């Protein structure tokens, strides 16, 4: 038995060549561009000492900026969950003229440079803009130069992440389970709530995490629309820029390291939540 298997499987397949060269290039590339620079970020803050880092982060302005960045990213990603689901569903399940254009347009935030998105959204939502003026006149809402503006910019940059993670899952899912549920007498809302949504939940969570990670660090599209008032609409990345301009390298690195560690902790939490979700469905 084992003899025939050994004979049937050629045991002397030549390994694909090129490991040494490609791995060498890869390690040099990853090491010089990613590992060493991020190591610098991890080491630099401690020039201030542990107490110094704590003091540098405990400044009210820093805490406020971190709260604005993480809070706005959270709100924007939550807003993007239903919007992303709606767009993914529309692309996969519905057929109407313009569906392909819609499909292509969803990647626009990936392709449009962030500074361009920033000034465009500002023009749109400024108090005299196409959308800003009616929102102000009808509801009295100020969007640009307020925290709402930050959320709008982050919704824009995060939207495709959720659509593009949910879309393939929805496409692969097929309609068998929905047909079965309907045959067993489930109403349409029951089917959507108990069959479709749970199956999409892990993908929604992944997309949420990607959009959130991107939104926390976003800079270009936000600084134009935010107004950048310290304690109110100043985001953490802008604070890093300001500290660098004052040659406070260690202080800037402290904020950067805090941002990275916080967002990795949140992504880790999302990952664990996702595992629990998957296990629960088994």
């Amino acid at each position, binding site marked *: 038995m084992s003899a025939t298997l050994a004979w049937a499987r050629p045991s002397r397949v030549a390994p694909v060549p090129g490991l040494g060269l490609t791995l060498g290039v890869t390690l040099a590339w990853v090491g010089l561009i990613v590992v060493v620079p991020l190591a610098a970020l991890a080491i630099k803050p401690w020039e201030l000492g542990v107490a110094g880092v704590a003091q540098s982060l405990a400044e009210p302005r820093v805490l406020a900026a971190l709260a604005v960045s993480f809070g706005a990213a959270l709100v924007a990603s939550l807003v993007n969950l239903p919007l992303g689901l709606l*767009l993914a569903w529309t692309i996969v399940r519905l057929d109407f003229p313009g569906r392909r254009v819609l499909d292509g347009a*969803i990647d626009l935030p990936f392709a*449009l440079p962030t500074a361009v998105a920033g000034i465009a959204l500002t023009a749109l939502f400024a108090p005299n803009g196409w959308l800003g003026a009616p929102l102000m006149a009808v509801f009295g809402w100020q969007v640009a130069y307020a925290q709402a503006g930050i959320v709008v910019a982050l919704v824009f940059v995060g939207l495709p992440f959720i659509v593009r993670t949910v879309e393939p899952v929805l496409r692969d899912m097929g309609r068998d389970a929905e047909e079965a549920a309907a045959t067993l007498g489930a109403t349409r809302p029951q089917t959507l709530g108990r069959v479709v949504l749970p199956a999409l939940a892990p993908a929604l969570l992944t997309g949420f995490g990607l959009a959130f990670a991107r939104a926390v660090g976003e800079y270009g599209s936000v600084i134009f629309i935010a107004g950048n008032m310290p304690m109110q609409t100043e985001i953490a990345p802008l604070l*890093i820029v300001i500290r660098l301009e004052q040659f406070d390298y260690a202080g800037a690195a402290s904020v950067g390291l805090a941002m990275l560690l916080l967002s990795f902790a949140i992504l880790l939490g999302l990952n664990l939540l996702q595992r629990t979700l998957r296990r629960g469905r088994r």
Partner: protein
Amino acid sequence: MSARFRPAHADAPWANALLAGAAILVAVVLLALPLAAVFVEALRRGLPVALAAILEEDSLAAIRLTLAVAAITVPVNLVGGVAAAWAVAKCEFPGKRLLVTLIELPFSVSPVIAGLVFVLIFGAQGWLGPWLQARDIQVIFALPGLVLATVFVTFPFVARTVMPLMQEQGREEEEAAATLGASGLQTFLRVTLPNVKWALLAGVLLCNARAMGEFGAVSVVSGHIRGETNTMPLHVEILYNEYQFAGAFAVAALLALLGLVTLAAKTLLERAAGRRAGGAA
């Protein structure tokens, strides 16, 4: 009502129409209007004014610098990305998952932090700052810094688009080629590359678009010296902050066009790749 039968698992036509309408509304407000705003604002004072803003000396310098940065960045990440994809997809070695995680890491790092890390190393008060200053080498506030920050930010694009495809295709064909005596380079050029060329091209286009449009990372390392270290997105910011809106939006429109062309090319490439995959099956 007609006797037409609607399966129980399908939604009512009015519900579908409502969903499609809502989706189109979201797309118009969030995607179409911002894009339209760029072009309307750029042309507000007429096409000649917009063109003059683009053809002005500092704008042309910014365009040249942006092209130079992309011309260095894209090949670096193309070589690194293809090498990484080959090593991960076609060979065996320990620590593979860690390597893949490191390659994807730049996607979850703020662009500002991407600029910051290079200032920490090469800046005036960075690790190598004094050493570089003694030799009169400028990294930060000069082209090398712009390139480093841009390489970091666009790092995963090529690797991320090619790697999954190469993994999916397995390594039987490459093993066969190796068994038949092909060298590594021959195997890559004749066996692997034809299988992934569309994905590779898409990855290069995305990498290029991001390299030309990057703002946060280059803003940190640029120093904003007009005509010298200003890339196009930074030039947009300067014009905008000087209330030269027509000029700012004109340069922005040029960048938006680059984004649109990239998007269209990517869509076409995906269709070409999809047709190919379908035809082979």
